[in-house]
């Protein structure tokens, strides 16, 4: 495992000049993932979304590696086409050097509109890595709910109103859906833990066949937390067990981080404007329900990972 100092010397392929918001998780994640591909040529595929609009405003580009954006829902199919071209041209001696193929999509482009394209690409076994930059809503279009949006969140299409207090449905477990594809490598990670992200990106890039990484990538605009606190907020997501770090390697589930203490979900919800309404008097039951959802998901995960399914004492 490289040290942070060593990693800081790797030549960046996603460089300054992009117009992502200050404190956006996407730029951090993309740099971490590309860092792990050191030594190989890379083609990046990208779904329509914040990352694409902020990094490729014609005639500029923030990408030093090859990059293709096609449409919103087809990053999986597009990168699989590039990979097929690589296989065909490599056989004919028409490509110099080795290439890695990485697709980036937001949660809208991955959990929702691009799910079919992603599923197809994974099932076909292309040698690609798909990275979901999960910021839990359609942020590029102005914070609309997606199937990745957590229960209770206030978004512009699941507003916290007088009758309905934010999003009513639990979020989709995309990482598990990807694991159900029986591909060589699936992982869930978060940017507060650079070692975890780096290790998982390395593994994903090294396996023969498709890999999927789901990265929690906070959005200060959509989540409404204090912008400099991005790492802190991500850490709280992990410590409250809201966003567990785990991997599924050749079908084997493994928990990568087990929080020592029981940190209640309030700690994660409270600093975020999207959950503010939950803290109004009379809404205690809503937070309780969210806690129950988090707990039951955590216990199910422990079981899948072969760990004893029990919560630490509160």
């Amino acid at each position, binding site marked *: 495992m490289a040290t942070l100092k060593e990693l800081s010397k790797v030549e960046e392929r996603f460089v300054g000049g992009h117009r992502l918001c200050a404190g956006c998780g996407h730029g951090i994640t993309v740099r971490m993932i590309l860092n792990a591909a050191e030594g190989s*040529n890379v*083609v990046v*595929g990208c779904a329509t979304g914040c990352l*694409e*609009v902020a990094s*490729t*405003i*014609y*005639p500029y*580009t923030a*990408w*030093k*590696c*090859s*990059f*293709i*954006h*096609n*449409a919103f*829902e*087809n990053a*999986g*199919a*597009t*990168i*699989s*086409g*590039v*990979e*097929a*071209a*690589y*296989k*065909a*041209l490599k*056989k*004919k001696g*028409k*490509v*110099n*050097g080795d*290439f890695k193929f990485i697709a980036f999509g937001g949660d809208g482009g991955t959990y929702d509109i691009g799910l*079919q*394209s992603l*599923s*197809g*690409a994974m*099932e*076909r076994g292309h040698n690609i890595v798909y990275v979901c930059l999960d910021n839990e809503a359609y942020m590029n279009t102005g914070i609309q709910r997606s199937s990745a949006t957590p229960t209770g969140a206030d978004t512009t299409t699941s507003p916290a109103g007088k009758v309905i207090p934010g999003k009513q449905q639990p979020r989709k477990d995309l990482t598990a859906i990807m694991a159900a594809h029986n591909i060589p490598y699936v992982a869930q990670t978060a940017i507060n833990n650079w070692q975890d992200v780096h290790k998982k990106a390395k593994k994903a890039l090294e396996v023969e066949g498709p890999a999927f990484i789901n990265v929690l990538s906070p959005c200060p605009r959509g989540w409404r937390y204090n912008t400099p606190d991005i790492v802190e907020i991500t850490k709280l997501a992990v410590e409250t067990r809201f966003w567990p770090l785990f991997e599924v390697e050749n079908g084997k589930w493994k928990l990568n981080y087990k929080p020592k203490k029981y940190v209640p979900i309030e700690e994660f919800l409270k600093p975020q404007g999207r959950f503010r309404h939950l803290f109004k008097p009379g809404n205690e039951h809503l937070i309780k329900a969210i806690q129950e959802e988090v707990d039951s998901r955590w216990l199910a995960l422990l079981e899948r990972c072969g760990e004893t399914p029990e919560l630490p004492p509160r």
Partner: protein
Amino acid sequence: MKTKVALTGNEAVAQAMKQINPDVVAAYPITPQTEIVQIFSSFVANGEVDTEFVAVESEHSAMSAAIGAAAGGARAMTATSSQGLALMFEVVYIAASLRLPIVFPVVNRALSGPINIHCDHSDAMGLRDSGVIQLFSENAQEAYDNMIQAVRIAEHPDVRLPVMVNMDGFITSHAMDVLEVIDDETVKNFVGTYVPEDYLLDAQNPISMGNFDMYDFYFEHKRQQVEAMKAAKEVIKEVGKEFAKISGREYGLIESYKLDDADVALVVLNSAAGTAKGVADELRAKGIKAGVLKPRVYRPFPQEEIREALKGVKAVAVLDRAETFSTCGGPMFADIRNTLYDLKNDIKVVNYIYGLGGRDLRLEHVQQVFEDLENIRKTGRVDETVKYLGLRE
């Protein structure tokens, strides 16, 4: 070397694809195109082509993967029909705007709803303004010939655009026809090797494609696509002439059939042109000066050639195998009337919608159209501009 063979349209197209031997084919089954991907898959399975076949989960992904492959620097193809093309709609525009020379046969089938599997041209017409070149084929021979020429047209440095090769569902795709196929080596030499200009897999020169393009550049990029379409007209003619050298069959933008001295003429795409030519011959024997114009290329639209071909005609009927629901006639009718407007010589132009959902176009229907045109020519009067053929009203 040329060989006479009996093949269906689908088999002929698959044969052309085998001889072109593309780097990547990404495709999905749909009636009546399915046979093309089936046959091509067997070529892949038997090692008869070097192609990476990507069996995608939808037509949207078929074109998306073809875009990725072509952007990667590969010669890429797909194939589809009807709903499949409709599902591709979004990405066909993107393929054109990225200037990717993807060749794709479209076996024309009616669009839902109601669901129907038989021929009409509503699928192709839905994408007439997408920026792809559209070639139409009267029979299996033309479908085969168009496929081979399409590669050269698409990849020409002045063009670099996708080419859609159309043929009629079932009528052409499933009917056994006698055609001449060219030997593999000659086709291989004719299509040549694809040399991409800028591509993703060029390790020394990384590139960003599909960038976010705002009001400061988008318009210019669209204008460049128009220039490529204009250039395509010349390229299509050049390639057609070159193709004649290996096949003995020359292709231009349109086919004029007995139009030189014609009084009345039909304009019609694809297989119905054969029916129309047969009827024109019969009428000629009876002293009626009938002719037929068959656009081989629908996009770019061969306006000058059509104007030149029809300038001496008194009455023209445009046969459309698609509706626009504008209540003013079919899509090709609008194009042809527009084309003839500048002649200012009082050519009467009428429209017939025919064959939707696979309804047969019978000889008597075409005879009726010519009869109507003769009446219009004699009286100078048009009672109804848009009519329907073979329809129960």
